[in-house]
């Protein structure tokens, strides 16, 4: 049990505040009258809606299918009817709406038939496809589709790390899950080990969770190692935990799989167990409700549960609350609209009170004291990145390895000038991303423009050739009427010009309707049909 740990640099010790929510067992939420299931809950392309308003659905029925490679499915949390498929408030820092399926519960909670999988004998790719269709995504926060992570790919995976560090203050959902459902988590880890074909399995749990550690140790077989790691934020960061446990650094811009290590959250392992052994899609997750609430605790919450209802289940916010955070205080974001639902990424609803969460003092200039650099777990120089992000010199900011920043918030936590450093980094990153997007679009436009010019040139040439040939024929027919080739050429040109004018009068037929993608053709057909309908209606109205 004495594995050699490799402490990473930096990190901070914020107050844990785990006690309010980790004392009571996970509670189940009652069935609610309405659920809102966003189709974009994971990293990658949003799921494609499979249902329409008015359709009846059963619990566990797929309502959104994975679209493209990096994507996963979404499912109905209960039985009922689809009220609408439309943009609704979602838990996102922007407060923007996103496409959701709104389900009116019928109270029966009727389920589709669940099919447990014989995972030990199932073909690996079939297993992964099933996992994609069951909607599994990482529950630690990044919500990367799990089926992709279970594909070892070209690089053999030798170590599987189960992340139960839960280093964010206040959050205890993984803690309670490990205490109460350790056996299921271990089974999930067993399935992962099978899919990845790796030998070594490590659980990393911070030492402020002795009960969880004990439960896991009791449940884990001898060939899985449960490691207690010192409490230090952000030891639950994927790269940090990997280094802590193995001493291997995840290469910049890459994933831990590049060095043969795969990391999953313990909550994902639990959901994987349910998906594979019970055949149940990812319908619910454990969410911590804590902070300035009447009865803080953890709730088994169906995906799509409006956060207001979740808050009510925890007895509601106490008087004097000043808003809620989705996630923890270090990496979470302000909830702008309480009707937004719980998604696969929501692990905590933290109600702020003015005493523990006072407004951030006004920022003073950076004095380059270097406290941020000492706290940075990625060994960055945040004050340099800030210096250039603030001046909107993104190239320079990037040269200080802005994209190695994991946005853990350690730098802003220790800053004596109270500078919202991470806000500046997020700003700079999204600006750089936009520029890259613009660049791609410009490149595409350039290619299309050049092609158009090429096409016009080609068409002109083709036409000229055609007329030249026609003229030649005429000339041949007329015999050696004009022996002068110069005159003939002039005549051909004249004829060509006349022909062009005639064509122009008739209206040129552009040739860019060829080779259209099927989708666009379909769209045109639809629009035409719609236009006809509308036109008919309009005419009818006039008459």
């Amino acid at each position: 049990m004495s594995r050699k740990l490799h402490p990473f640099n930096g990190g901070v010790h914020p107050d844990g505040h785990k006690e309010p929510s980790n004392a009571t067992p996970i509670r189940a939420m009652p069935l609610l009258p309405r659920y809102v299931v966003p189709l974009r809950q994971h990293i990658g392309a949003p799921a494609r809606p499979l249902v329409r308003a008015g359709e009846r659905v059963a619990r566990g029925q797929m309502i959104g299918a994975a679209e493209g490679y990096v994507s996963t499915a979404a499912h109905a949390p209960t039985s009922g009817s689809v009220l609408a498929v439309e943009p609704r408030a979602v838990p996102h820092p922007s407060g923007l709406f996103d496409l959701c399926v709104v389900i009116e519960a019928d109270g029966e909670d009727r389920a589709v038939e669940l099919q447990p999988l014989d995972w030990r004998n199932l073909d690996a790719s079939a297993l992964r496809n099933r996992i994609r269709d069951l909607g599994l995504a990482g529950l630690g926060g990044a919500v990367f589709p799990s089926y992709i992570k279970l594909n070892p790919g070209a690089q053999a995976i030798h170590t599987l790390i189960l992340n139960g560090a839960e280093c964010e203050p206040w959050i205890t959902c993984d803690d309670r899950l490990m205490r109460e459902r350790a056996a299921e988590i271990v089974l999930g880890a067993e399935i992962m080990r099978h899919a990845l074909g790796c030998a070594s399995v490590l659980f990393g749990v911070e030492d402020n969770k002795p009960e969880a550690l004990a439960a896991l140790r009791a449940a884990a077989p001898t060939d899985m190692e449960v490691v207690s790691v010192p409490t230090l934020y952000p030891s639950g960061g994927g790269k940090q935990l990997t280094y802590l446990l193995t001493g291997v650094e995840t290469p910049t811009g890459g994933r831990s799989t590049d060095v043969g290590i795969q990391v999953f959250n313990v909550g994902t392992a639990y959901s994987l167990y349910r998906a594979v052994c019970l055949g149940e899609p990812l319908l619910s997750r454990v969410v911590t409700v804590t902070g300035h609430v009447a009865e803080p605790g953890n709730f088994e919450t169906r995906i799509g549960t409006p956060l207001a209802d979740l808050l009510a289940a925890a007895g509601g916010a106490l008087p004097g609350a000043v808003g809620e955070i989705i996630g923890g205080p270090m990496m979470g974001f302000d909830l702008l609209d309480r009707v937004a639902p719980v998604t696969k990424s929501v692990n905590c609803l933290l109600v702020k009170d003015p005493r523990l969460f006072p407004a951030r003092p006004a920022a003073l200039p950076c004095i380059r004291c270097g406290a941020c650099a000492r706290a940075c777990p990625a060994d960055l120089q945040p004050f340099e990145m800030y210096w250039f992000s603030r001046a909107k010199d993104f190239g320079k900011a990037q040269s200080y390895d802005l994209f190695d920043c994991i946005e853990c918030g350690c730098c802003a936590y220790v800053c004596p000038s109270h500078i919202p450093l991470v806000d500046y980094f997020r700003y700079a990153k999204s600006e750089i991303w936009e520029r890259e997007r613009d660049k791609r679009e410009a490149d595409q436009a350039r290619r299309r423009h050049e092609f158009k010019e090429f096409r016009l040139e080609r068409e002109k040439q083709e036409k000229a050739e055609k007329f030249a040939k026609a003229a030649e024929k005429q000339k041949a027919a007329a015999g050696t009427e004009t022996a002068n080739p110069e005159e003939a050429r002039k005549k051909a040109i004249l004829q060509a010009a006349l022909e062009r004018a005639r064509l122009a009068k008739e209206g040129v037929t552009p040739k860019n309707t060829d080779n259209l993608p099927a989708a666009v053709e379909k769209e045109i057909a639809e629009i035409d049909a719609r236009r006809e309908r509308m036109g008919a209606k309009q005419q009818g109205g006039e008459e």
Partner: protein
Amino acid sequence: MNGSPFALLGHNSVTAVMAKVMAALIPGIIAHAWFFGPGIWVSLLLCMLFAVGLECLLLLLRGLPLKPFLSDGSALVTAALLALALPTLAPWWLYLMATLFAVGVAKHLYGGLGQNLFNPAMVGYAAMIIGFPVYMTQWAAPIGVAHFTPSLAEAFDLVFAGSGAISVDAYTSATPLDAWKTQARQGMAEADILAQPIFGWAGARGQEMVALMYLLGGLLLLANRVITWHIPVTFLAAMALTAGLLHLANPAQHAPPLFHLLSGGAMLCAFFIATDPVTAASTPLGKLIYAALAGFLLMIIRAFGAYPDGVAFAILLANICVPFIDAYTQPRVFGHKRGGKRGQA
């Protein structure tokens, strides 16, 4: 829009940092008053008044709010360092000019706190030593050496009305560093030089105790984690090493290392001036290079240069190198290849 983190480390602010620096200066100031008379209070008061006044004026001119920028306390720290570096009992306008260069030119022209490239106090000092060398060599003599040590009221009088009937030589003397240099060049023996009343048990009389008090204050800052060990230790080590080598090579010309460490502004510089985070190098390796460079240059200027104490020039020269040092000593980022070029993913 306010993003994460929502938690903040408590009792942590620029004001608190500056207050700790001021507090750590107090033992040194008291020792100064004890050994050189109450004149230091006058220059301290004047510098602080001028600094705060100028800071207000410049903030108003730049259209910035007064309260947050005044309460950060950086102007007071600059003023205190300036007052401790400048000779006491100089005319009042010298303090005004020095503060103008420090707060006006070196700080606000660059955009205020955190933006300056040069240490403000040292710019003020260097500008004065170039502009008014006469006043900058009249140092208050320690009590017991001076014929006359002005009281607080007399000190005010001297600063504002000039020396008048009293001869300047009555209360000032050459600095021991200066005395050593000129007398050693004239061929006086080490023992004879040290026997003079302005020299103490290891360095300059009075100054050695003040330096030890600065050392004490610096250790307090270290204990409070306001500064890290890198700069002071390297700076003093580089100084001692250079001084030691010079002393070994030519004991008749060059004073022993301890004398250099405890004379002039060396200790103040090591813990309070070189450690100014804004103008010092910021990477771990860069800090070592920066401090070693400053210590080395200080000793070179002291040993061979035209100025008796080179603290200001050594720091300014090191300041010039800081952006370059920082650019080439960036630490390896987590997940990057060892020895890989910065900025390449």
